[in-house]
C-alpha cells in the first residue's frame, strides 16, 4: 500500500532521512518508534507529501507520489492525524467533519452530515456536534480529529504522535478509538511511544535512530529480545 525506496531527506545540510526502504502492506498496522529528532515525523510526512523527498521514491496505492498528484492522492487515498489535533477552530465539530466530504468528494450535505454523525457516535462525541473545538478537552479534540480523518473513508491513516500532547488521563480514550479502528482493514501507520498500544494492534514495529530504520520486528520482539544496543537503551527509557 505504501512503498518507499531509497528515500533521503535533507533540511539544508541536515541529513534527516538516510536511504530509507520500507514497504507497508495493505491493511497492515505499522508502529514507528525512536528518539526525538530521529526522523519519525519527517518519514510519515513524506507518505502524504507534506514533506517533499530530497531523493528516492514513495509509492502510495501503486502510484508514485509526486508534487503534481499529492493533492489528488490526499483527497483519494490517505488521511492524517496530528499531535496538535489541528482542528479548524472557526468551524463547529460537525463542519470540521463535513468540509472535505462536501467540498472535495462532492457528497451531498445531508448525506455527509449523516456519515459525520456516524463517526462522531463512534468516537463517543455525538453530543458535541454543534460545539466549537476550543470548548472541548484535548482528548475530545483528538477524537474529533480522528473522526474527521475517518469521514473521507480513506485506505490509509497516518498518525503522528496522536497522544503526545495530551494530559495523561486523556491518553486512553484516544488509544481506545484507535484500537477500535485497528479491527478494520484500513492501513495504519502510527508514530507513537505507547508500547502497550503497539503490543495490542501493531503487526510490525520499526525503530528509527538518526534517520535510519535500525530494527524491525513484532511488538513481542521489542518487548522480549531487542537486539540493537540503541534500541535497548531507548526501550529502557520508555518502558517502566
Amino acid at each position: 500500500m505504501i512503498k518507499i525506496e531509497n528515500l533521503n531527506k535533507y533540511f539544508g545540510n541536515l541529513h534527516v532521512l538516510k536511504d530509507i526502504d520500507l514497504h507497508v502492506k495493505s491493511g497492515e498496522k505499522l508502529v514507528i518508534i525512536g528518539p526525538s529528532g530521529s526522523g519519525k515525523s519527517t518519514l510519515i510526512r513524506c507518505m502524504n507529501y507534506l514533506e517533499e523527498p530530497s531523493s528516492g521514491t514513495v509509492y502510495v496505492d501503486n502510484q508514485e507520489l509526486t508534487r503534481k498528484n499529492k493533492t489528488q492522492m490526499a483527497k483519494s487515498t490517505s488521511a492524517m492525524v496530528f499531535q496538535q489535533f489541528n482542528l479548524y477552530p472557526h468551524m463547529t465539530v460537525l463542519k470540521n467533519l463535513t468540509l472535505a466530504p462536501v467540498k472535495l468528494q462532492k457528497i451531498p450535505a445531508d448525506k455527509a452530515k449523516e456519515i459525520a454523525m456516524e463517526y462522531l457516535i463512534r468516537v463517543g462525541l455525538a453530543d458535541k456536534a454543534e460545539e466549537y473545538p476550543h470548548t472541548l478537552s484535548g482528548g475530545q479534540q483528538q477524537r474529533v480529529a480522528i473522526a474527521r480523518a475517518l469521514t473521507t473513508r480513506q485506505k490509509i491513516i497516518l498518525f503522528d504522535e496522536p497522544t503526545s500532547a495530551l494530559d495523561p488521563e486523556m491518553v486512553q480514550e484516544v488509544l481506545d478509538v484507535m484500537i477500535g479502528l485497528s479491527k478494520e482493514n484500513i492501513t495504519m501507520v502510527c508514530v507513537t511511544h505507547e508500547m502497550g498500544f503497539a503490543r495490542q494492534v501493531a503487526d510490525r514495529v520499526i525503530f528509527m535512530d538518526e534517520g535510519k530504520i535500525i530494527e524491525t520486528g513484532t511488538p513481542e520482539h521489542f518487548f522480549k529480545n531487542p537486539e540493537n544496543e540503541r534500541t535497548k537503551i531507548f526501550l529502557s527509557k520508555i518502558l517502566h
Partner: protein
Amino acid sequence: MTKLFSIRRWMQLFGDFDQFLAGMRTTLIVALLGLLIALALGILFGVLSSVKIKILPWIARIYVEFFQNTPLVVQVFFYSFGLPFIGVRIPDLMVGILGVGLYHGAYIAEVVRSGIEAVPKGQVEAAESQGFGHIQVMGYIVLPQTLKITLPPLTNQAMNLVKNTSVLAMIAGMDIMYYAKSWAGNNGFFYQGYLSAGLLYFILCFPLTKLTAWLEQKAKQVPSQKKINNGMEADV
C-alpha cells in the same frame, strides 16, 4: 483669549460653514474611495506575500517597502507636480484617492500578511492532508480566520486614512483642511478655522476608534489564535 471667544468671529464661522461642509464632502469621498483602493491593494499584496512562488512575495515586498518608507506628502506631491512633467495629469480629487489608497494599501498588506501568518501552520497542513489545494486552503481555512483577527487593525487603518486625507490641503484639494486653511487665512480667524477642522476630523475618526476598541475586545473572546501587531502607526 479674546480672539478665541470672540462672538463675532464664531458668528462669521457659522455663516461660512457651508465651505467647511463642502470640505467634509470631499474628505469623505476621498476617504471612502481611498479605503476601497487600499483594501483591494492590501488584500491582493497581503495574499501575494504568503504565496510559495518566490517572485510574488518579492513584488509585494517592493510595494510595501516603497510606500511605507516614503512620506505620504512626498508621494502626493509626486502625483500632483511630478507626473505632469511626463504628461500625466491627474485631477486633485484623484490624487487624494490614489495617494491615501496606495499608501494605506501598503500598511493593510502588512496587516493582511500577519493575519495570514497568525493562522497556525498545522491547520494548513491538516487541510492539505485532506486534499485541499492552495486556493481552497486559503478560502476555507486561512482567510476566514484572517478576517476576524485583522478587523481591529483594519478599522485602525481606516481611521488613520481619514486623518491622512488632510494632506490634500497642500495641493489645494478642496478638503476640510484646505477650506479651514483658506477661510482662516482670509479672515485671520485661526482659532475658529482650525478648531472646526479638528472637530470635523474628530467626528469622522472617533467612531472608528471606538469601533476598533470594540472589535479588539470581541477578538479577545476568541481563544486559540495568536495575536498580531496592530498595524503600525501611519500618520503624516
